[in-house]
Each structure stands twice: as structure tokens, then as C-alpha cells.
């Protein structure tokens, strides 16, 4: 053990809940360490629709979640303007659906405080030309799209700006205990290849689906019920607004426009905990997603699918039902001191992307209570880095600058466009300046980290054309030119994992083109 250090709180897990909690605690003046075994948003936080729920989807089935969502929706629009697109959303009723449900839906939305307005189907077609023209009913709701990578990155950045240590690629090996209490963690730094210890009076388990394993290290039992959700990414935006199906929540009934693409999802299937590290999208899921997607927006039938991906929802079995049949969809905050007699240990799980800030607030409140600290939560009003108001006097900005501004908001000013304006990823207009900035400020360690923060290689060609140039630039900015080939290998494998399930038509041609460009076979080492 080379090194040890002490903190006020250690947070395990670099998903949106973990980084949100880290930020909240850091803003309250706590000394924070966050440990993430891979990169930020490697789990469910990075594998979802990117939907900032208005809460409408839960209005009929779960009023509490609905009300929670709309409150948080309003807050996140304010504090994370560069991560959110104010797309608004539609709930449409198709001829095969029950129009009665729409009336109930609108009523419940209003009860939950959601501004849901019934609009004429013709009006809905005018507002959203891609919508299935045979719709018989439509309701407009304040849905929005949110980029979870950017949101997590902004939280991590702000936490770090307030003194938190955010350590990615650091895997927790065990929890350190002293007379029954958790007093710290032993972890392995996968980049430096060393084992370290850190101490804090409180440790927060925010490991998502992996939370069951972390809890077990403390001798506590949490029963996670992993549910796989698969999604498809289309090559461009066909819709400007989020399109939902107005019926009981079901498979593939949400189409979200996110940045320059759109995403249809999701499916829902129970999977084993041991499968969570390597889940794959099946052909049956692709077919289901496509079929249902086309009923929301028929144009999807003719739109190129870039890739498929799947995430695992960290659903938790209710404490009062040991069989695990009933799950809790809401926020689950467990104080293991009162629950299991293990002081110094908290688990936060359940919830959803939209409610991450509230989850973080509740967790930080509990942390503060345990530490005897009395400081107010600031996250509902303090803007995240990048979302501060800013203006650019130069109106004739390059497309690449505008694209970067869409991703990084006011922080784009920190990029060196005078020296490094060369566009490396042409599909997504990513310059060397943006790459250098991401390396310097956003904790990028490899191509996949870089992709999450900049959209490098997320466009039509999935990196076929730019990957070599980007890998070279990244290796150079990181100061490790010898890593270039490894970056390419790692990245191509990750891209192919997503391309394989949808490999037909132009996606197949693209894969062939990538193979020629990279000189590797699509089936290699997947």
C-alpha cells in the first residue's frame, strides 16, 4: 500500500448519482473522494434515452415519481442549460390505442403539476412533421432531451472545482471496517496499477447495478433486480420533439431527439447480475424497437440505424418483499447504520436520470447529518459549469465552434481555436482544440472517454474516417504517443459492439469501409 489519505466522504460510483452527490457534498464544503472503476457514466447513466422526463410518463402509474420529475425537470433546465435541449414532448394516441387513457393521463398530469395540454392531431402534425400521421390524439408536455455524458461531466468538473477528487479507473476491492463501522475503502488504480487505501467517516455506495456487490462487502444485503433496456440510435434527427406513446408504459414507446441523432427505446428484460458487465442487444429486440419506433415516426423505416446499445436499470427489490418480486421505482436511500447496524455506510440507488440531483441532495443531507455538518444544499440554484449565460460577439463563428458550444456551453471559450482549429472528427465537427480541452479539463484517459465528452466518432461514420487522426491527436495531448494503436483497437471494438446488431444496408457498408480503413476484421476480439 503506497499511499493513504483521509476524506469527509468517499463516494463509490461515477454514474450521474455519484457525481451529483460528489458535487453536492463539495459545494457544502466537504472533502470528497469519488472512485469509479471505469469512466464516468459507464453504467446505466450513459446507456439510456437521454430523456429529461416531464414526469408525464409516470403520471398514471406513479404520481410521486411524476411530481418529482417535473420539479427536477424545471431545475435542471435552469442549472444545466448546455446539457439540455428544450425540445418539448408529445404523447400520441394511435388508432389501436384507447383514447380514454388520454383523458385519464391529462388529468393525472395536472394533478402532478405537469403542464399537459391536449392538442388537435393536425396541430401535432404541424408541430412535429415526423409524427405518425394517423394519430387520433395528442398531448403536449414539457419533456426535454438531456445529454447524460455532459451532465455527469459538468457535475464532476464542478465537484473538482470545489476540491473533490474524482478518480476514474479506480476499482474498489474492499471496504475497510473498524469495530463494525465502515471507515474507508481499499481500491486498485487500474491506470497506475497500484492498490491504495482511503479513509472517511462516511462511505456512499452509488454503484448502481453493482451496488449489491459493494453492499455485500460491508455485510449488507441489497437485492438488485437488473432489467436490461435496449435502444437504437438513428443517423440523424427525424423528430424535433420527444414522441411518446400515450398508453401504459410499454416497450419502445419513446423516441428522443438527442443532439444530432434520435434514439428509440426501450425494451425491458430481466437479466442476471453476472451478465451486467457484458450485455448484448438481440435481433428480436432490434426488430421490436424498429417496429414500435416506426409506429411513432414512420420515417424511421427508411433511416439508417447507427448502432444499438443496452443499459441495465438498477431496480431494487423492496425491503418489505424478500422474494424480490416487487420493485421500488423511486429513490432508494439506505442508511445501513439503522437498517443493518453498519455505521458509516450509505447506499443510494433506484431513481432515474431526471431525479439525480434530488437523489444527490437527499444523500448529501444524510452524509451531513452523520458528520454533524449543517450546510444547505446549493445544487438547485447554482448553475453547472458551462451553463452560465454567455454571448459571442463574433456572429460568423465556424460550424466547429458552434458545435463545440452546443456541447460545452460557456466553457468553449477556454478552447484554443486560434491554434488548434483543425477539424478531426468531421461528422461531429470536433476540433483538435476541443480534444485538447477535454484532455486537460475533463479527465479523458482514452478514446471512449473522449467520445463521451465530445461526440468524437459518434456520427455517421462511427470513426471510420477520423479514428486514426483522433487517436494520434489524443495520444499526443496525453503525452503518450505509444498508446495510439491501443486507443484505436479499444475504440474499434467498442464501436463494433454497437454496430453488429444492426449490420445491414448502409450500416453494413460502413462497417466494411471501417474494416478497410482500420485494417481489422469486424469479428476480431469482440
Amino acid at each position, binding site marked *: 500500500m503506497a499511499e493513504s489519505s483521509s476524506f469527509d466522504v468517499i463516494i463509490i460510483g461515477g454514474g450521474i448519482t455519484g457525481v451529483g452527490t460528489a458535487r453536492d457534498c463539495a459545494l457544502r464544503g466537504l472533502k470528497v473522494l469519488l472512485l469509479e472503476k471505469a469512466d464516468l457514466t459507464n453504467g446505466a447513466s450513459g446507456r439510456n434515452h437521454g430523456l429529461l422526463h416531464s414526469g408525464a410518463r409516470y403520471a398514471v402509474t406513479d404520481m410521486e415519481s411524476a411530481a418529482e420529475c417535473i420539479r427536477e425537470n424545471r431545475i435542471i433546465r435552469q442549472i444545466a442549460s448546455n446539457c439540455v435541449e428544450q425540445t418539448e414532448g408529445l404523447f400520441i394516441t394511435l388508432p389501436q390505442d384507447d383514447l380514454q387513457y388520454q383523458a385519464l393521463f391529462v388529468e393525472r398530469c395536472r394533478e402532478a403539476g405537469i403542464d399537459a395540454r391536449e392538442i388537435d392531431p393536425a396541430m401535432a402534425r404541424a408541430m412535429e412533421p415526423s409524427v405518425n400521421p394517423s394519430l387520433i390524439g395528442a398531448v403536449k408536455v414539457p419533456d426535454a432531451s438531456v445529454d447524460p455524458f455532459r451532465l455527469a461531466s459538468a457535475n464532476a468538473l464542478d465537484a473538482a472545482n470545489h476540491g473533490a477528487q474524482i478518480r476514474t479507473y479506480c476499482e474498489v476491492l474492499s471496504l475497510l471496517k473498524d469495530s463494525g463501522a465502515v471507515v474507508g475503502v481499499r481500491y486498485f488504480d487500474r491506470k497506475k496499477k497500484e492498490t491504495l487505501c482511503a479513509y472517511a467517516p462516511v462511505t456512499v455506495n452509488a454503484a448502481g447495478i453493482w451496488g449489491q456487490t459493494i453492499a455485500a462487502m460491508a455485510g449488507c444485503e441489497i437485492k438488485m433486480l437488473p432489467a436490461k433496456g435496449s435502444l437504437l440510435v438513428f443517423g440523424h434527427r427525424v423528430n424535433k420533439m420527444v414522441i411518446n406513446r400515450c398508453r401504459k408504459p410499454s416497450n419502445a414507446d419513446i423516441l428522443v431527439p438527442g*443532439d444530432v441523432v434520435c434514439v428509440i427505446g426501450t425494451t425491458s428484460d430481466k437479466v442476471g447480475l453476472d451478465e451486467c458487465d457484458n450485455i448484448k442487444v438481440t435481433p428480436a429486440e432490434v426488430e421490436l424497437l424498429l417496429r414500435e419506433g416506426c409506429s411513432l415516426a414512420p420515417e424511421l423505416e427508411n433511416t439508417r440505424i447507427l448502432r444499438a446499445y443496452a443499459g441495465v436499470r438498477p431496480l431494487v427489490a423492496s425491503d418489505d418483499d424478500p422474494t424480490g418480486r416487487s420493485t421500488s421505482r423511486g429513490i432508494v436511500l439506505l442508511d445501513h447504520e439503522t437498517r443493518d447496524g453498519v455505521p458509516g455506510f450509505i447506499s443510494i440507488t433506484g431513481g432515474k436520470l431526471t431525479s439525480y440531483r434530488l437523489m444527490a441532495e437527499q444523500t448529501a443531507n444524510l452524509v451531513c447529518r452523520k458528520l454533524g455538518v449543517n450546510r444547505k444544499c446549493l445544487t438547485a440554484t447554482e448553475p453547472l459549469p458551462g451553463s452560465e449565460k454567455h454571448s459571442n460577439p463574433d456572429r460568423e463563428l465556424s460550424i466547429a465552434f*458552434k458545435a463545440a458550444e452546443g456541447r460545452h456551453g460557456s466553457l468553449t471559450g477556454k478552447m484554443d481555436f486560434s491554434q488548434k482549429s483543425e*477539424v478531426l472528427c468531421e461528422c461531429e465537427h470536433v476540433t483538435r482544440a476541443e480534444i485538447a480541452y477535454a484532455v486537460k479539463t475533463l479527465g479523458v484517459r482514452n478514446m471512449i472517454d473522449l467520445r463521451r465528452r465530445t461526440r468524437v466518432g459518434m456520427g455517421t461514420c462511427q470513426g471510420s474516417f477520423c479514428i486514426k487522426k483522433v487517436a494520434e491527436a489524443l495520444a499526443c495531448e496525453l503525452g503518450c504517443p505509444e498508446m495510439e494503436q491501443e486507443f484505436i483497437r479499444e475504440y474499434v471494438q467498442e464501436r463494433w459492439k454497437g454496430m453488429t446488431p444492426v449490420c*445491414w444496408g*448502409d450500416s453494413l457498408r460502413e462497417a466494411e469501409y471501417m474494416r478497410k480503413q482500420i485494417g481489422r476484421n469486424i469479428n476480431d476480439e469482440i
Partner: protein
Amino acid sequence: MQEHNISKGNFEQCLKCNICTQVCPMFEVNPHYPGPKQAGPDGERYRLKDPSFFDLTLKYCLNCKSCEVACPSGVKVGDIIQIARLKYGRQSNPLRDRMLASTDLVGTVASVLAPVANPILAFGPAKRVMDIFGVDHRRTFPKYSGEKFEQWFKKNAAPAQSRFKEHVAYFHGCYVNYNYPQLGKDFVKVMNACGYGVSLLEKERCCGVALISNGFGKQAAVQAAQNVDSIRKAGAPVLTTSSTCTFTIRDEYRNVLGLDCADMASTVELAVKWIYEKIASGKVNLRFRPDFHLKVVYHTACHMQKLGWALFSQELLKMIPGVELVVPEQHCCGIAGTFGFKKENYGYSQAIGQPLFDSLLAAGADAVATDCETCKWQIESGTGIPVLNPISILAMALLTD
């Protein structure tokens, strides 16, 4: 299951191979132009997200369609750029652009005023005034003819056409009507020699190519609809002598202006193609002067390349005994219609044209043959070699009784 994935404008078939960028004549000389892939399919994804991603550098696209000819995936790269310009663009110099694009109006006025207009347009100080107006002083406008082709035709040629059993209609275009009626006269001579009478369309408007490239989409659509209507009424093959007009009517009306005129497109073709096919199938037999000698270097206009018809012109020229034909590698001349007249574009226009000028001069020919009038202006000013339409060469070589 999804079998195809061809979106509107089929931009998603783009594999990002960048072959289009490699062949783009503008990309080669202008560091400000991002190239057809970025201006077209890449930019389109972002414009769909937010129209403010429209990039002003799209004005540099020559609409030469070299990108489309080269694309192995059949992406209509040039169309995507043109449509974006019409949808989101604004004229940088509206008055000048309107003047340059309004070929019918300006042509009609200038034809009447030809004796005055021609010397003024060629006069040094007047050119300096044009410069302020945004038209480069190093350009010389094509001369205006005192008598429009339509007037000449009605007076001198129309009566004699009734003696032919079979007829073709002639879409002469603005250049023939206002500037160079001689080409129209040559066309009538050649068609009559082929045994066909010539008629004009009920009403011909400018094809609209300059309106499209200058961002006046609505006006272009109005004129296009009138032309489509006249062409449908013609009741005979509609022949042309300008590759650009032909390409505009056949391709741009449908693909860029969105007109429903697929039925009409194939009835319009260049006279060279029509004549070649008639001769090749033995239906027409032309007799040529035995004493005709001309060394010709053929320049493939970009829109001729897009149509895929350069071979017809070349083969037709080769049929003329006494014609020695040289065909260098295709290269854009750089003028792109009104583009090269604009002060801010002159430098790019000349830089693009230079390799072509060099190869044409190196051929040591008596004349350049090409099917495009604006290429003619550019090549004549860039090389000093006279430029002729293949139909004019055919007319010169015909043996007449």
C-alpha cells in the same frame, strides 16, 4: 425488418469516404470552403438539429456536381448543398445577385440597348463602376445582340420549317436569344440538314440556373413551372444547345426545386446526343465539306459530365472528316455561371481554371469545343482560343447545296 435506409436527400448513404472532397475543384483552391462532404451530408445533420448551423461558406459551392459524379454511394451531395442554400441562405449582395440572376429581364433590356450597352459594358471606367457594384472589373460581359434569336427565327426561319414532315422543338436558352443568336441559326441549319423542321416553345423562360445559384428559389420555381408546361405542350422532342440549361431542366427542377416533372425530364436532351443517335441508327445522314480542316480540343463542361453525355459531342465531332480531336482530362473551368463574375470570387475562379487553360493551350488547337456558354466565356478570356459549340462546328462543316 428494415431493408433499405434511404432518407430524404439520401445523405445517410454517405460513408464519409471523402472521394467528393478529393474531386471538388473549389476545395482544391479555397481553404475557407469545407468541401462537399462537410457542406453537404455532414452539415445537413447539424442543420436538421438547428438551422443556425447553416454555414455561409456554402456560397463557395460551384454547383458543378463533380461530387455527385464521383460519389460511390449515389449521395446527391450537390443537391443537398443547393437546397440548404435556398432554404437558409441569404444573398451577400442582393442587388447585384438579382441583376446577375435575372437573365431574361436584363437580356431583354440590353438587347434593345445593344448598340449603347455593349461599348459601355466593355469600357474601362464603366468596369470600375461595376467593380463597386460587386462585379469584377476583369470580367467582360458577353456582348448583347441587337436582334434576339426569337425575332430572327420568326422573321427568317419559321416560314421555311413547314416543308419538313418531322419536327423538333428548340429550347434555345438566354445566351442564344440575347447574346449569340448565331448558335441558334447554326442549330436550325443542322436540324434542317438532318431533315427535321424546328419550332420554338410556346413560351420559353430562362431555365433558372442563375436564380437557383443566387438563392432565388421561388422565382426559379415559377419559371421552371412555365417551362415544364411549355415542354409538355411541345409534342416533339425538345432539343437544346446548352448543357447547363439541359441539366437544370432535367435534374434541378425535380431534385432541387421539387417540381413533379419526371415525365418531362427525359423529353429534353442536347441536340448533339439526339443527332448522334439518329446518325448511329442510320436514320440521318449528313454530308460534310471535303475541304474542312479544324484541330479541336474538347472541354467537358461540368454539367455535361454530370449528364454523362460528353461522349456524344466527341463522337459527333469525330464523324466530321477534317476534324482532328484532342480530349484532355476533365477539369472545371471555374466560372460556374454568375459565380465567377462576382468580385469576391474572381480569384478562386481563375485559380480553378488555370490548369484547364494550361492543358487547352498545350493542345495547340485552332478552337476549343464545348457545350456550355459560360465555359466559353471563361476559356476565351483565359486562353484567347476561340470557343465553339459542337453544333456550330457541325454547321461550319456541313456541305450545303
